[in-house]
């Protein structure tokens, strides 16, 4: 029977929808899985490993032994500040990093043979007895490659200029210009003593499963001062971007599932409608319901298997094409996809068949044989509420399984629910209203409106399906736009990429002058004082070690200002009037939360050995990833006037301006400059890759959405073709017929666009609030776009799909149907 149906051409529609669904779901799933693993790999570069144990003392050897047993590779680094000498008088405080043989385990080091020279890559650091120096140190120490420099009691040969390290981003602790040396040379220098300010890092890398097993073994054994770093902690900016990108890809994949389900539902409906006559004939020839059910049941299973096989192959090809097309934009190596995408494809095919295709086909068995005599008899094969519930549950289950995220699933389903309920109600009401108004209108309008109304329920359903497809696409476009916009806002091209700390008060003017005359854009110069929060409302806080919860004594940097610092936003309280002498303070939101204080509370501080009490006047919100000077506490200037302060700022340097640092450091040797430009570039690189991936997935989903729209339009083409051909026989011109069709479809598109916009706005609100951790911004521009695109798209698709009726002889159409 399958073969016979295939020849009849009707099975083709269902198979095509199934293959499309499986291909899109499998393709996107494989693509995102591979992309995720690639991006994760990429992100591990920022740790120079898969996992890192950071500690102030050397970690016990048993950790390394255990890692070895689990087939993990390991390396060790040790970072500390130290003076570096050259010749008789040159001496600079440098940030030294000693690395063992296999460092870095992930990513690469870059170096050059001369300061600021041509960049080369290396998979390991300097050999014992040699050092790599920051380019700036060559000038400051007046040395060249091959000269000797001293660290502590040992002497080293300068081998190269160090340029970047994969884990350079690891926090702001890396003060001073970098010196790279070999780990085995540490004892000879004698600079690392018990109590020295040092950071040990043990690096681990290996198969993901082994790393995960190892870290879960390690975690319970960690003591005070030992921390396991993951990607997020290594590089918060990248971590957040990746997390969001991952959610977005999952969101996109879930949309593919929904669109696939809708496409199959549409195809199945058309299939069963067309088969009602067929079944009626079989029944009139004596076939029993049972026989018919068995026939269609086994056909469906065969169909599912064939479609899954074709779909999985097509899906595999799809993702291969993606990676092929975008190989340049995605310089990461895609990881393996594993069997999961194909399992998802298989499950999607059979769930959709069972929940969307089977209910109407099962009822085919009950079709009345009387239809043989009267073809226009109302079909009993109407969908029941149960069908829709079943479909909804199936979609929900698939989405949940696919995304593994209940909130993401919930936000989308709520949006879809709104579309469904609002849609059916609105569409039915409006379509009925259209009838009354339309009666007095000209013939073309009445034709169109009568058509709309006569297929009332079917049209309402069609509106809902169009609306759902449009809504999903709008949601995707909106989320993508706001994600990318936020990333760009976070890291504008001129974002500060260097910090300057430890500026003496009498240097402030000279430095401002020098920055200005060298055309270096900088943030304001802020005073910085370090102190400790000792009490809240006169109640002493415990030390960190004695504390049971979050609330304990905390050290913090603070500043003074008469205005709200740039990039900060007041969320509670009020800013003080300029020149106030009152002991007030403004706290950063998170900081206030951890201390559990509100506006009006009093906090006691210790600055050096001086106590200070201040009342919380306001709470501020700020973006820690803005690369601007940010402070936990801000005081009125007069309150801190008596305390000694240093100053800090951040500024932006273009790559070709780098030599400015040489001049600057010679003139202000005590100022600490922290170079963040490499980090900023790395973050931007990741964001660019992720954005490209998002655009790509968006494109695929848009195509899938368009296909659903086409399927939706096609579902009603038969009856419209039939009516149009009668009209033509009666002498209607093509303009009239196409006009009527255009009005009919455009009206459907208008409702769908309106609904889609409402539901999209609602879903985006939920998604941004629940899932993507972003602030909801209404998008008024969405309304005209959503409505116009719905009207034009559906109108054009409808006319295009029915254009055949005016180009073939009416007799042919009448005969065929």
């Amino acid at each position, binding site marked *: 029977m399958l073969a016979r149906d295939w020849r009849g051409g009707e099975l083709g529609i269902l198979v095509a929808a199934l293959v499309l669904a499986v291909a899109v779901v499998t393709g996107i799933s494989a693509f995102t899985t591979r992309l995720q693993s690639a991006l994760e790999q990429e992100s591990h570069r920022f740790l120079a490993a898969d996992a890192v144990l950071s500690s102030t003392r050397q970690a016990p050897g048993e950790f390394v032994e255990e890692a070895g047993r689990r087939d993990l590779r390991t390396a060790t680094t040790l970072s500390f500040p130290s003076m570096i000498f050259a010749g008789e008088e040159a001496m600079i405080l440098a940030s030294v990093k000693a690395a063992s043989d296999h460092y870095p385990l992930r990513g690469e080091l870059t170096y050059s043979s001369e300061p600021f020279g041509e960049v080369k890559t290396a998979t390991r650091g300097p050999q014992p007895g040699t050092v790599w120096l920051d380019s700036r140190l060559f000038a400051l120490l007046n040395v060249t490659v091959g000269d000797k420099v001293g660290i502590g009691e040992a002497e080293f040969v300068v081998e190269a200029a160090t340029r970047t390290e994969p884990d350079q981003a690891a926090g702001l602790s890396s003060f001073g210009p970098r010196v790279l040396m070999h780990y085995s040379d540490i004892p000879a220098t004698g600079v690392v003593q018990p109590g020295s300010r040092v950071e040990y890092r043990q690096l681990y890398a290996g198969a993901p499963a082994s790393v995960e097993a190892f870290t879960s073994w390690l975690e319970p054994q960690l003591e005070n001062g030992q921390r396991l770093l993951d990607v997020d902690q290594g590089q918060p900016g990248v971590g957040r971007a990746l997390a969001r990108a991952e959610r977005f890809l999952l969101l996109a994949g879930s949309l593919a599932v929904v669109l696939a389900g809708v496409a199959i539902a549409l195809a199945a409906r058309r299939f069963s409608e067309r088969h009602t006559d067929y079944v009626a004939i079989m029944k009139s020839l004596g076939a029993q319901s049972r026989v018919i059910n068995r026939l269609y049941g086994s056909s469906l299973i065969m169909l599912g298997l064939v479609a899954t096989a074709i779909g999985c192959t097509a899906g595999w090809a799809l993702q291969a094409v993606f990676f092929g097309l975008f190989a340049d934009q995605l310089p990461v190596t895609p990881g393996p996809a594993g069997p999961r995408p194909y399992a998802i494809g298989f499950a999607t095919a059979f769930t959709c068949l069972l929940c969307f295709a089977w209910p109407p086909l099962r009822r085919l068995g009950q079709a009345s044989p009387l239809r043989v005599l009267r073809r226009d008899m109302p079909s009993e094969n109407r969908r029941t509420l149960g069908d829709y519930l079943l479909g909804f549950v199936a979609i929900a289950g698939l989405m949940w399984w696919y995304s593994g995220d209940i909130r993401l699933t919930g936000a989308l389903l709520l949006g879809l629910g709104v579309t469904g309920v609002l849609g059916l109600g609105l569409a039915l009401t409006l379509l009925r209203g259209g009838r009354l108004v339309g009666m007095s209108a000209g*013939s073309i309008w009445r034709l169109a409106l009568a058509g709309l*109304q006569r297929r009332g329920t079917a049209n309402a359903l069609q509106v809902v399906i169009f609306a759902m497809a449009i809504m999903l696409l709008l949601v995707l476009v909106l989320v993508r736009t706001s994600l990318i916009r936020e990333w760009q806002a976070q890291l504008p091209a001129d974002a500060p990429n260097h910090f300057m700390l430890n500026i003496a008060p009498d240097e402030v003017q000279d430095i401002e002058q020098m920055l200005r005359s060298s055309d270096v854009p900088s943030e304001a110069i802020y005073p910085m004082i370090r102190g400790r929060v000792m009490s809240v409302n006169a109640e002493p806080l415990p030390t960190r070690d004695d504390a049971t919860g979050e609330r304990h004594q905390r050290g913090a940097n603070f500043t003074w200002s008469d205005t709200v610092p740039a990039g900060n936003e007041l969320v509670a309280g009020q800013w003080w009037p300029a020149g106030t002498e009152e002991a007030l303070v403004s706290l950063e939101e998170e900081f206030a939360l951890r201390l559990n204080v509100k506006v009006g509370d009093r906090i006691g501080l210790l600055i050096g050995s001086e106590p200070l009490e201040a009342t919380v006047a306001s709470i501020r919100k700020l973006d820690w990833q803005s690369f601007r000077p940010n402070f936990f506490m801000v005081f009125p200037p007069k309150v801190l006037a008596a305390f000694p302060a240093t100053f800090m700022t951040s500024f932006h340097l273009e790559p070709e301006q780098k030599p400015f640092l040489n001049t600057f450091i010679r003139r202000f040797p005590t100022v600490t400059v922290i170079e963040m430009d490499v980090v900023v570039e790395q973050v931007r690189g990741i964001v660019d890759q992720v954005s490209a991936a998002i655009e790509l997935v968006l494109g695929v989903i848009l195509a899938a959405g368009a296909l659903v729209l086409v399927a939706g339009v096609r579902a009603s083409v038969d009856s419209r073709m039939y009516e149009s051909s009668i009209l033509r026989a*009666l002498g*209607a011109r093509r303009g009239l017929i196409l006009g009527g069709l255009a009005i009919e479809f455009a009206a459907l598109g208008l409702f769908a666009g309106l609904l889609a916009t409402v539901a999209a706005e609602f879903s985006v609100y939920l998604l941004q609030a629940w899932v993507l951790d972003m602030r909801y911004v209404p998008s008024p521009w969405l309304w005209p776009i959503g409505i116009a695109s719905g009207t034009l798209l559906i109108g054009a698709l409808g006319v295009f799909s029915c254009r055949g009726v005016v180009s073939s*002889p009416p*007799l042919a159409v009448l005969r065929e149907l």
Partner: protein
Amino acid sequence: MIRAENLQKTVPMGGRELEILKGINLEIKSGETVAVVGASGSGKSTLLGLLAGLDEPSTGRVVIGGTDLSALDEDGRAAFRAENVGFVFQSFQLLPALTALENVMLPLELKGQQDALSQAEHFLQRVELAQRLDHYPRQLSGGEQQRVAIARAFAARPEILFADEPTGNLDSRTGEHIIELLFQLNQEHGTTLVLVTHDLKLAERCQRRLQLEAGELVVT
């Protein structure tokens, strides 16, 4: 009135051309009633479609009252149909979206007639359906649907009426009633009637019978 010259119609079928009509020549005078008879597959309906301008011949031409149909494009033929031609089909072909009244009004509106509503009401009354103006086709029986179709066909007062097996889907009593109506209205309006039928009784009511055999006219 209607003149067919060397009408040929071939359709591609399984890679080769199938000749349905093999050079038909005929003439039908104004006001004449003609039945086209023949076995299934002899090409009756194809001939009707060509005469009515619903399809284009492969070669040859159809001239109606001086207008050469094959010289017109589809829109031209549509305008010509709206002005001059009415149809009654075997399967009624009413628009399911429209009520009986609206179905009858349709050709009048296509002609741009102002009194479409009253005309349509008049013709529905004429076919004894005055009580069912606002019913949809699915709410009508087969005989009633065909009566609506007849009302629709005559409402526009066409010069020529084409009927394709008008009684084919109806029982014999209903069929007879339909035939009565058809000929009554035909007489009242002096319409030229061309009908395709299997029904010998119906064929006999016509002034002339054209016998088609395997795509060719045979003399009776």
